[in-house]
């Protein structure tokens, strides 16, 4: 039994977790200011921004993947710029997967954070301003520590959602061994090659890990429930 598990190729899983970890970190840093702005603004642009942010939830991953592919390829201004200046290609490699995942998982980070920000007592935020503190100080020292469940939800759901992505990854990254072949793509390939045993093992591992992650979030949040899920 142990030998069997030792003989498995875990590269696709490691790749999936590396991708999810990086995406989560980048998205957390991008989404903090965005979610904060959305929670505080009374601007008329708010519904537009919210709709754009939520688009990846409703769009088929192939559509998202197609547009990302088109806008990052060497034929696009952005892709050409990176190719000429830095000598890197933005498609069919790990970097392109990270970029695509950031778009794909954006709402799963922004929405729980925005919900968390909106659940914070406005007077508490204002009390911090009155105490002479800036918005950044207020968010870091008062707001975020009071919405830990929402922060945890955002991080875990984004991570899990990125591990679970398939369509976008396949469109933008293809299936290059040790570079873009993540667990979900590996399973797809195994099924195509009728390696059902391998597909079973990989799939069961995915189910188990996803369940453990979700169980951890719900257990932590059931005691002090703030914020919410987007799905």
């Amino acid at each position, binding site marked *: 039994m142990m030998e069997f598990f030792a003989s498995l190729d875990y590269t696709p899983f490691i790749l999936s977790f590396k991708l999810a970890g990086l995406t989560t970190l980048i998205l957390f840093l991008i989404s903090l200011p965005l979610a904060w702005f959305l929670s505080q603004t009374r601007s008329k642009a708010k519904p537009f921004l919210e709709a754009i942010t939520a688009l990846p939830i409703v769009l088929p991953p192939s559509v998202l993947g197609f547009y990302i592919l088109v806008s990052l390829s060497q034929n696009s201004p952005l892709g050409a710029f990176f190719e000429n200046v830095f000598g890197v290609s933005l498609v069919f490699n790990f970097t392109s997967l990270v970029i695509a995942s950031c778009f794909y998982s954006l709402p799963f980070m922004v929405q729980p954070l925005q919900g968390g920000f909106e659940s914070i*007592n406005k*007077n*508490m935020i*204002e*009390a*911090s*301003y*009155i*105490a*002479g*503190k*800036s918005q950044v100080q207020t968010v870091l*020292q*008062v707001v975020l*520590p*009071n919405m830990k469940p929402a922060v945890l939800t955002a991080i875990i759901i984004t991570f899990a959602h990125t591990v679970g992505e398939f369509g976008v990854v396949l469109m933008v990254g293809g299936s290059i061994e040790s570079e873009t072949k993540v667990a979900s793509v590996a399973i797809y390939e195994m099924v195509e090659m009728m390696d059902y045993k391998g597909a079973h093992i990989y799939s069961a591992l995915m189910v188990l890990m996803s369940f453990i992650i979700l169980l951890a979030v719900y257990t932590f949040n059931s005691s002090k429930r703030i914020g919410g899920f987007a799905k």
Partner: protein
Amino acid sequence: MIYVDIKKQLHGTKGLMDLDVNFEIEDGQFLALSGLSGSGKTTLLRILAGLEDSVSTIKVGEEIWQDKNTMLRVQERGIGFVFQDYALFENMSVEKNLLYVNKDKKLAQKLLELTDLTELKKRKPSTLSGGQKQRVSLCRAMMNRPKLLLMDEPLSALDPAMRRKLQNEILALHKEFGTTTIMVSHDPAEIYKLAERVVVLENGKVISDATPQDTIVKHTGSQKFSFEGEVIDIVKVDVIWVAIIAIGQQLVEVVLSAGERKELSIGKKVKVGTKAFLPIIG
């Protein structure tokens, strides 16, 4: 001297309303702000704090907080603000709530001693009672050593005994720090006890600006004494009609004449008094 001239259009409960208020406050004065809900009291406080936009001139001593060209941000005004719902930083202990405003440990210690909170300084706000929370909030507001202390119905969520205790503490801190204080309050006893001056707002305008004696202890009519109350119920007892009237926390029964019975309805605000009252001295 604080000079205030505030204009702002508000979306009130009865449609658009112009807040248009102009007054001066002497340094160290304790001013109560009263009036029905929706009359603009809270907005007035928020404008003074810099939390709300308006077309205003606000001068504190020689310093201009707001005029046509200037708009000092809320962070720069150095005010103290006490919210009705306390608004404490839930993630910080009592002591940290104070030190977040200002690192002055001595001042924090002194304030905690003044308000009997020293023993609770390591506790988180969620473990405190309402009265304790509001005392922390009061201490936190004083950590700025504010020139101007603003309080929005600070005691209205507390029971009468806790109110009286906190009234004393508010008064003590007001005097100790020589702060100019503006407090929104509906409680006549509280206003009488704390304030030197009462400004009453109605629909965004000042309708009365006087001492508590003149504002609250009204001498209208020729009654020897009179109380304001609200009709809670009108019941028939045998052959007479009796109105149940709430006066403050008390309910009283008043026998009605046939004429009065017709005029009264449940929910009506009334004055209960007596004219033919002969005090017996003995």
